[in-house]
């Protein structure tokens, strides 16, 4: 229980306007969205004895399968319960889904952590961001199993909320979502400016900044190797310009160049180039002509 208290103090989720601040706002029959669970219908209040304590709880039923969800009254605001989005909010989500996607985050650790936070505290737009981000990533390369599951989960949450908000069956809602994500060839939507993406407040102690030299762009996974010469050239240019600003602009590359090359990843291209320049060993050079000569020789002998 101690751990829970400390966690609650440090990790207060971002409160959106649609979030429910207090249990008093809820009444039986209300539809709410429980992060990571989906749309639930409030059944009522009930008291439960748990670990010798009498707790007052809100009972809800998950609409998808009727599973019971119990939330202590005191935890209603901290678990991130929120009202089902309105039709207008859903429309703006569709404009966001159909807009040109930004480059996906390539560092899987950062991506996964951000996605988890968005699903919990980002509201319907946060869920849409996860769906769109992973969908655009899947266009570049197949998603690993964990992210495929995360994508399916997020998509499922989005589809169920769209279905409830627009009052359509789930399969139609899914068609609408896919129509926005994968428009048929030749389709052009009249898009409004998409809403601002949700800013996720991740506690500072959980945000580990990667060291400058170890910045992983995920290029190895894609099979792309950066040429080693690029960094010093940029550094030289920056020095020629002489300005402090120019130095700052080129700082990540310059910092990398100043650092001694790591034997593992950075030295790879250099090693390959050196191998290409190196003359072939004498034995190898001799072996090839010898074979031909031997063939010719043998033939000559026969003649």
């Amino acid at each position: 229980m101690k751990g829970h208290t400390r966690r609650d103090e440090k990790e207060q989720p971002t409160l959106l306007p649609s979030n429910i601040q207090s249990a008093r706002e809820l009444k039986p029959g209300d539809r709410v969205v429980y992060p990571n669970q989906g749309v639930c219908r409030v059944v009522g209040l009930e008291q439960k004895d748990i670990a010798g304590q009498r707790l007052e709880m809100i009972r809800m039923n998950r609409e998808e399968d009727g599973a019971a969800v119990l939330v202590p009254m005191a935890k209603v605001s901290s678990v991130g319960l929120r009202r089902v989005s309105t039709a207008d909010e859903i429309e703006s989500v569709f404009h966001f889904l159909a807009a040109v996607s930004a480059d996906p985050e390539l560092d899987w650790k950062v991506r996964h952590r951000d996605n988890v936070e968005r699903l919990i505290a980002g509201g319907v737009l946060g869920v849409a961001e996860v769906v769109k981000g992973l969908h655009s990533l899947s266009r570049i390369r197949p998603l690993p199993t964990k992210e495929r599951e995360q994508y399916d989960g997020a998509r499922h949450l989005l589809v169920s909320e769209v279905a409830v908000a627009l009052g359509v069956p789930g399969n139609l809602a899914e068609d609408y979502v896919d129509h926005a994500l994968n428009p048929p060839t030749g389709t052009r939507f009249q898009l409004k400016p998409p809403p601002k993406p949700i800013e996720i407040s991740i506690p500072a102690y959980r945000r580990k900044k990667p060291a400058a030299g170890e910045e992983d762009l995920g290029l190895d996974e894609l099979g792309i190797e950066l040429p080693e010469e690029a960094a010093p050239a940029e550094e030289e240019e920056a020095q020629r310009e002489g300005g402090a600003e120019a130095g700052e602009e080129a700082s990540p590359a310059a910092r990398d160049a100043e650092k001694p090359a790591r034997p593992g990843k950075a030295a790879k291209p250099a090693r390959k180039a050196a191998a290409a320049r190196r003359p072939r060993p004498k034995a190898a050079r001799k072996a090839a002509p010898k074979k031909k000569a031997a063939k010719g020789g043998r033939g000559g002998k026969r003649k």
Partner: protein
Amino acid sequence: MIRLVTLAPFDEGDIAFVTRTLFQAFGLGTEHVGERKLPAEAESSDDRYDGPKLLEEVSPVRTFADDKVLYLAIVPLSMKPGPLGEPPCYGFSRYGGERAVVSSALLPPRGVTEASIERFRRRLARESVHYVGHLWDLHHCLDARCAMHPSWSPLLGDDPGFELDSFCRDKSEQRIRLAKT
């Protein structure tokens, strides 16, 4: 069991190909029950048929628990437009429902050559697997080679695959195992 009902005359070879494909995809017996009339109530002013309404109004087929019914039509279908307009409607079915309808109106023309007939059959079989898949709670799939990939996606080639990928196959097998019968 999957029961196939035609809402217009279809070639026997096409029906045989669809039943065989459905059996391979879901491991369930599939049979052609017969032909029914299109319900006039589902027809809209633009000469299309409303997908959800068609399934409500069409004359029922005798089924047992967990049977699925697939209606094959040639008329164009429509659905309620979404926030960005109406997606192309190749068919309609509800998750976990009992009935699905597939239309051949948006498929490549059947033609008379062997190649065009084969292409038409494969596409019809793909859409049949797709909408019966929804009846077994399968959702759309990311993999463009899977039959559950959205039917209008630009990632689908001229001859899209009509098989389920391993992810969807596992899910459908699990659902079928959990079914009452």
